[in-house]
């Protein structure tokens, strides 16, 4: 495997992208999970899907756009979708989660129209849905590297604001924090990460990379910082392991990454159970 990685550019690209996504997806995922916004990632990934489908449609029909990287339009849709979610959340103040199915179905609806217009599925589209070991280009790698720097930098600079907002929104408001601005910045980052992740994990499985490692880490972490570190560790194990398995078994990596994440999650839950039991036993013995 190591030999192959050194040998083939496309494998290097896939692994480097995987490593970066293994950091930024759970990094934002931590805030998404504790703020109970998990479904927003799902809604945005479906909006991204419609952007990708539009881009593929354009490439097919307009000669000069044949080489357009679908990441751009996908990213654009994702960001615009996040703005719509925020508008809708303001409109339905007491039923904020309504914004999510609205945007999600709009994303799928548009996506299906574009896919039909393009006369069905292409392998390209399949790769975007479920990820691919071989489809990551050098240009993708560069775009994703830029997104990674932006995301890590912003979270580093706004860490205490994001924490305060996540822990206690009301207190964030009373302490004079520009809550809307911070939240808005955060949602844009989420949109970017979703677009960046789809090359490797695939659109349909992006949100699981943001939530599953965090769900597992929650079982262990006592502090918020540790939660972030453990989540990233779990995500990296799943991404690297998933890419290796996919390469050898010729699978779409999205599937193996998610299955590995779920195994990690189950293992931590079982370990915690056993730990709790043995703690009792120790006490009974003494």
């Amino acid at each position: 495997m190591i030999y192959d990685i050194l040998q083939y550019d496309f494998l290097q690209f896939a692994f480097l992208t995987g490593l970066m996504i293994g950091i930024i997806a759970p990094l934002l995922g931590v805030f998404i999970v504790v703020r109970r916004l998990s479904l927003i990632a799902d809604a945005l990934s479906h909006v991204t899907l419609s952007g990708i489908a539009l881009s593929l449609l354009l490439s097919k029909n307009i000669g000069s756009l044949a080489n357009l990287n679908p990441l751009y339009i996908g990213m654009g849709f994702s960001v615009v979708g996040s703005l719509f979610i925020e508008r809708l959340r303001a409109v339905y103040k007491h039923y904020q989660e309504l914004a999510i199915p609205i945007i999600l179905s709009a994303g799928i609806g548009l996506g299906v129209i574009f896919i039909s217009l393009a006369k069905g599925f292409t392998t390209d589209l399949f790769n975007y849905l479920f990820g691919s070991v071989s489809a990551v280009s050098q240009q993708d790698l560069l775009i994703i590297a830029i997104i990674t720097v932006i995301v890590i930098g912003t979270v580093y600079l706004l860490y205490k604001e994001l924490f305060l907002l996540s822990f206690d929104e009301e207190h964030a408001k009373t302490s004079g924090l520009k809550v809307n601005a911070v939240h808005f910045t955060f949602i844009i980052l989420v949109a970017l990460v979703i677009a960046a992740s789809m090359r490797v994990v695939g659109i349909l499985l992006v949100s699981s990379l943001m939530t599953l490692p965090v769900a597992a880490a929650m079982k262990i972490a006592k502090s918020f910082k540790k939660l972030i570190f453990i989540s990233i560790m779990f995500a990296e194990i799943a991404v690297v392991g998933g890419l290796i398995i996919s390469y050898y078994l010729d699978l779409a990596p999205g599937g193996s990454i998610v299955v590995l994440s779920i195994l990690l999650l189950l293992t931590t839950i079982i370990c915690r159970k056993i730990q709790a039991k043995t703690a009792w036993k120790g006490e009974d013995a003494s």
Partner: protein
Amino acid sequence: MTSEIVKINNLSYRYEQNPVLNHLNFTLYKSDYLGIVGPNGSGKSTILKLILNLLTLQKGEIHLFGESIQRFNDWEKIGYVSQKAASFNSGFPATVEEVVISGLTKKVGMFKAFNDSHRKECIKALEKVGLSQFAKRNIGELSGGQQQRVFIARALINNPELLILDEPTVGIDEQHVKEFYELLNELNRKHAFTILLVTHDSDFITKNATRIIHMDKTITFDASATEFSKLKSKEMHQIYGCTDEGRKEN
């Protein structure tokens, strides 16, 4: 006029069609220790939320530290412990220290991280509520009363000039309630903190506050604590109608 910490002028508020506050007027002066009492649903939390700008002003005026609330920006001068604090999402994976230090977010300013001196302030704030040995513990592992004291520490960490508390002692055991009121007394008498406290605990409040407002959608009583306790012992059963204005409103 810096000695006027909070000035409320002809304040009215309604949720949708439901009027909750009617023409309120009162001024809180520096180092006042004001207790607000009144039955459930009388609008006490609503006043606090208006003062904290969590609700948008509809009618009337609020001035904070001499500045109208629309232009006021020194929110770190105000510490707030909400009525809901004890019922927060207790599965949240954060340590006591992380929660308390988050109170400094605005003061430290954007783009800067907390450093050791901030952590020292955090320990000091935790000492004030007797929880310094819990700094590294997960907040979900604390009891409800201990959690409430963590939120009080988070409000104290800024050394606010005005402390606003909405039923802060709910769920706290008797011993710690006593200690908590002693802490408020000390902050008020020694360090001249201005305190605005909403509570149902009228025994404690008459013993500790310097001034008491009784309200039910409008102010029905506003005088010193000694005055209030005299009145209370005299006409226990008729407390709610103690002024003419109050009678008319009811």
